[in-house]
């Protein structure tokens, strides 16, 4: 390759080549989970603990205020919410993984190789999606053992899981941006916690939003964690799961006031797509700036 004064032809990386690179990086990230099973165990233990605690400690009290479709079983109502909680907290792993790679110089190594630039980020979010899928599966199994039963159809149930995965994937990209911006693992973790914790609690994950004060309820009902939790409940338990029932409430009116299932599913998907549209390019930009 001689140097000429003409404009230099830049080598391009074909989509096939990029797909291979993404697969290689994804596999590498997943291997880490297998070699360091603590990662997966901790990622699973915490939500399972929540599942047990909430079901047996609060189940009795909150169980009264939940929709009848949950058949008085708080676990039916709780599990979809906890799946979203897991997705939300699990997304922090994306930030953690990236900051670790950055600080250990692994990303420098990758950048010195003739590989697709996108592979580091795509491989990371993809492997986290798969990891999330695994944790969600464990949770669902645990839920079934504790008495969870979907009330719609298997298809509704699976559709719910897919909505959850989509949401988890979108959150991963938010966390990728944060991780790359703050650069250090501890800071990334606090940032995740600070952001996710209030959102998870100010949502319908644990209790119906109808029980919240108006100002909080207004916020809680539009934010993505509530919307996605509702979407899952609707898909797994049916329309009635989104209505507020209880003493002194007219069930017909309550059902009429409830948000519709497909409305919530659509909103959740819009949230996910919106997040991806903003945070994929943002992560890529921050990545270039951080390592360039």
């Amino acid at each position, binding site marked *: *390759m001689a140097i000429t004064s003409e404009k230099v032809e830049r080598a391009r990386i074909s989509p096939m080549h990029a797909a291979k690179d993404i697969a*290689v990086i994804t596999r590498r990230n997943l291997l880490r989970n297998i070699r360091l099973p603590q990662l997966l165990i901790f990622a699973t233990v915490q939500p399972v603990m929540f599942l047990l605690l909430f079901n047996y400690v609060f189940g009795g009290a909150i169980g009264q205020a939940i929709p009848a479709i949950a058949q008085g079983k708080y676990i039916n109502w709780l599990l979809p919410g906890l799946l979203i909680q897991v997705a939300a907290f699990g997304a922090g792993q994306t930030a953690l993984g990236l900051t670790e790679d950055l600080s250990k110089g692994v990303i*420098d190594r990758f950048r010195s190789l*003739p590989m697709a630039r996108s592979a580091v980020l795509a491989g990371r979010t993809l492997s986290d999606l798969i990891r999330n899928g695994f944790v969600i599966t464990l949770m669902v199994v645990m839920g079934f053992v504790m008495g969870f039963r979907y009330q719609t159809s298997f298809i509704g149930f699976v559709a719910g899981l897919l909505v959850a995965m989509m949401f988890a994937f979108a959150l991963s990209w938010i966390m990728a941006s944060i991780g790359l911006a703050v650069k250090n693992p501890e800071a990334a973790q606090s940032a995740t916690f600070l952001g996710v914790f209030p959102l998870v609690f100010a949502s319908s994950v644990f209790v119906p939003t109808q029980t919240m004060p108006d100002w909080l309820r207004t916020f809680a009902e539009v934010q993505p964690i509530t919307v996605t939790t509702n979407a899952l409940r609707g898909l797994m338990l049916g329309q009635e799961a989104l209505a507020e029932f209880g003493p002194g409430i007219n069930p017909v009116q309550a059902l009429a006031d409830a948000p519709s299932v497909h409305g919530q599913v659509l909103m959740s998907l819009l949230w996910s797509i919106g997040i991806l549209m903003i945070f994929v390019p943002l992560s890529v930009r921050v990545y270039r700036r951080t390592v360039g």
Partner: protein
Amino acid sequence: MSKPIVRVENIVKVFKKANVRALDGVSLEFGAGIVYGLLGPNGAGKTTLIRVLTTLLRADSGYAEVAGVDVAADPTSARTHIGLAGQYAAVDEYLTGRENVEMVGRLYNLPAKEATKRADEVLHNIGLAEAADRTVRTYSGGMRRRLDLAASLVGRPQVLFLDEPTTGIDPQSRLGLWDIIRDLVAGGTTVLLTTQYLDEADQLANRIAVIDNGRLIAQGTGDELKDQMGGSVIELHVGDEVRDQAIEALTGLSTEAAAFDQYRGSLRLPAPDGSQTLLNVVRRLDERSIAVQDIALHKPTLDDVFLTLTGRGAAEAEAEAEKVTTSKRRGPRGRSN
């Protein structure tokens, strides 16, 4: 020299936030098949230059070319020709040695089978065949460095960049690594390595460039650099109160007057006749009844080269590099050049 395989022209890199002029107009070039040693103290700009050449960092100005490819204009092509083992081993703790190397092979775009074969080969050559299937977590620091080197070799790079490959490695392993590097060069690879040790550059490098404060201050073979030193050096410690007396006493015994190295608190003077000069020095000091606390004859070190080239020791240069934020012209330019 045939067509240069690495060509650097007037590269400038300023880290604006830190207000550091890490590279201040560096130019160098060399042909294929040699070891080029970049010698300099902490903060000299060695890593920064390697990062520019390996496409990790864009220079502010200047031109850099590796294997005929402009690294700024076509980084992807440049990357197919290079291998990098950075200053800190960038290996994955939770993968095995083999998985690490195979992965890098795949990212060099080798087919899976070929990557496996190549990984076996380089792991064997580098003496990690037995540990290949253990996770890197169980590796020692030296093994990690070697694994990092193995990974940088798997793509059969034309030019290999090694940033302080032997720092933090025991002397035995260091020799082993030198042999590996020599074998690579014998096999046609070109190596650019950085080091803080003159003897390493001397043993390994066909050509050496001394870098300080982002500028090349000398280039040549090891012998050429040492010739500027006039061979071995005598280093002696005397009490502060007799220092000037000692300097005076030693005039005429060497090619130069004894110089005081503030940083080390010692007097140094070239010993063109080796131990004979040492004997003369001891005798002279004895005649004048000047008490010597400590005296030694040694081969020129980086410190001596520095002292000669810049008029200050390497340790001192490093301390100064911490303070100096923008590169100004250095003070005394050394006595012998």
